[in-house]
């Protein structure tokens, strides 16, 4: 049992208690011997897990091959676009055209995927919103009132509306995939579509985007917002990596170069520095 969480120490005494003393149930390497994750031996008990089953087990402590397959399938269909114009992918592409390294390109692309207009913020925000909305609906509050309250507080609805285009082309293939997995009839997915139905009729005309769709699937699988967030941190690599490779194979510096006249300066007029 991990006793360190129960310590009543504070300040320097707390830090002294932890000095050279990390007690953890999560995992460790026993050099030249074995590796353990959450009480299971990597070489003998986890060795037949898929990569995603292992990640999901690390995050949730549960072995859930079906959910791992759903996460992997939705990551493939919905967050792995190999278009180097998309902002996170473009970072990896620029790192290619400047001949930086693959790991730096991917890590910068992953970091940038924690964005507001797409990526991890809507991903976590959408699941959080759906959980709160379901709770309120249970209390008898209407979809209209739930949505209006959220809009008033945040001026947007995580998982609804989209930059560049209204339509999210990922919903249909996502639904086909979920149907194949027999995972398309969950309560949260139903709720996500109900919210879309309401929003479509308002002046906002927001349609559901894939963040709400995926979040509803995660909610139907019982994932917490934090679990879903952590498993989603790697969801964009499938688009980031090919974007980086596409610029590596062309002459250096040729990925969307900008001539000087592409700067639209709204700066003040020329002046001289006075010390």
């Amino acid at each position: 049992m991990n006793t360190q969480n129960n310590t009543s120490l504070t300040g320097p005494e707390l830090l002294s208690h932890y000095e050279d003393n990390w007690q953890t149930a999560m995992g460790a390497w026993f050099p030249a011997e074995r590796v353990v994750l959450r009480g299971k031996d990597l070489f003998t008990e986890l060795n037949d897990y898929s990569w995603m089953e292992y990640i999901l087990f690390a995050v949730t402590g549960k072995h859930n091959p079906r959910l791992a397959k759903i996460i992997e399938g939705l990551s493939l269909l919905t967050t792995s676009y190999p278009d180097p114009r998309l902002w996170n992918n473009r970072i990896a592409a620029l790192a290619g055209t400047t001949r930086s390294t693959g790991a730096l390109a991917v890590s910068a692309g992953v970091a940038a995927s924690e964005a507001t207009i797409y990526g991890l913020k809507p991903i976590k925000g959408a699941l959080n919103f759906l959980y709160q909305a379901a709770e309120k609906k249970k209390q008898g509050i209407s979809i209209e009132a739930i949505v209006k309250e959220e809009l008033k507080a945040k001026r947007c609805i995580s998982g609804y509306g989209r930059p560049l285009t209204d339509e999210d082309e990922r919903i249909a293939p996502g639904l086909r995939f979920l149907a194949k997995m027999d995972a398309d009839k969950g309560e949260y997915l139903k709720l996500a579509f109900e919210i879309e139905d309401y929003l479509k009729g308002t002046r906002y005309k927001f349609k559901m985007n894939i963040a709400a769709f995926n979040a509803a699937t995660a909610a139907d699988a019982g994932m917490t917002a934090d679990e879903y967030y952590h498993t989603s941190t790697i969801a964009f690599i499938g688009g980031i990596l090919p974007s980086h490779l596409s610029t590596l194979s062309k002459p250096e510096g040729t990925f969307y170069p900008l001539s000087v006249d592409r700067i639209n300066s709204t700066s003040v007029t020329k002046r001289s520095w006075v010390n």
Partner: protein
Amino acid sequence: MSSQDKKDREQITTKIWREEAEPDNPFAATASYCAGYDVYGDLLGKVSFIEYLWLLFKLDPPSKAQVRTLEGLAVALANPGPRDASVRGAMNAGVGGSTHAAALIASISIGAGNLGGAREVFTAMQYWQQCGTDIDSWINIIKNPPLYDTGDVWPEMEHTPGFDPNGASCPKPVRQLLNHLANIEHNDELIWLQSNRLLLEQQAQSPLSFSGIAAATFFTLDFKPEEAEMLFLLLRLPGAAAHALEQERMGWNRYPFFGAGLTLTDDPGPSTKK
């Protein structure tokens, strides 16, 4: 390309920068202007690094007192020292022979957080924006911190921003920095912080930290929270870089691995399976 096509091309709109092209190459600048100043033809040789940093964010030159204040803070933040988590991240990259960019990425990622990091400065700046120098507002916000948005990607603040939850009394270097900055003219908020430090520490049940002084200083210099967050990330990089290179030269076997410092509390033991 026709002039119509040229007109339709997407552009980067910026208040910060203006460029003129070299006659033989539209992709190279013959002059670059920052906030109206010719960077290579005028600023170079005249402007200090801190003045230029200020200009980039503010688009107007700083006063002497503002330069002295930002300079003082920059020196204080430049090296948090090798025990600091952000510098340790950089040194881990160093001893493992990672890329030098990875060392700075490690430093930035770790030093971005709620504990002693740039997000703490951001949140503390929001406290300053809300409370200013009204002690009652401070006492109230410390007792009743803003509600956490569970949909946020940042973890919830676990302590009063700007104060060290694991501290004892306020360390001397923190007090020295506050004294130095409070003695520069026009830094009224820092004088107020100096006068009210003990009371605030009592309310927060923890001592003022460097991130707390950084937030107060950025507030007194009229930076926005997001600008303060960026500058805090930037200003702490020099020490991380230097320590990473030093440890890289010495190697992993002269750097702590905490070999005997880990206890696995859920251990199935050596497997009998083959």
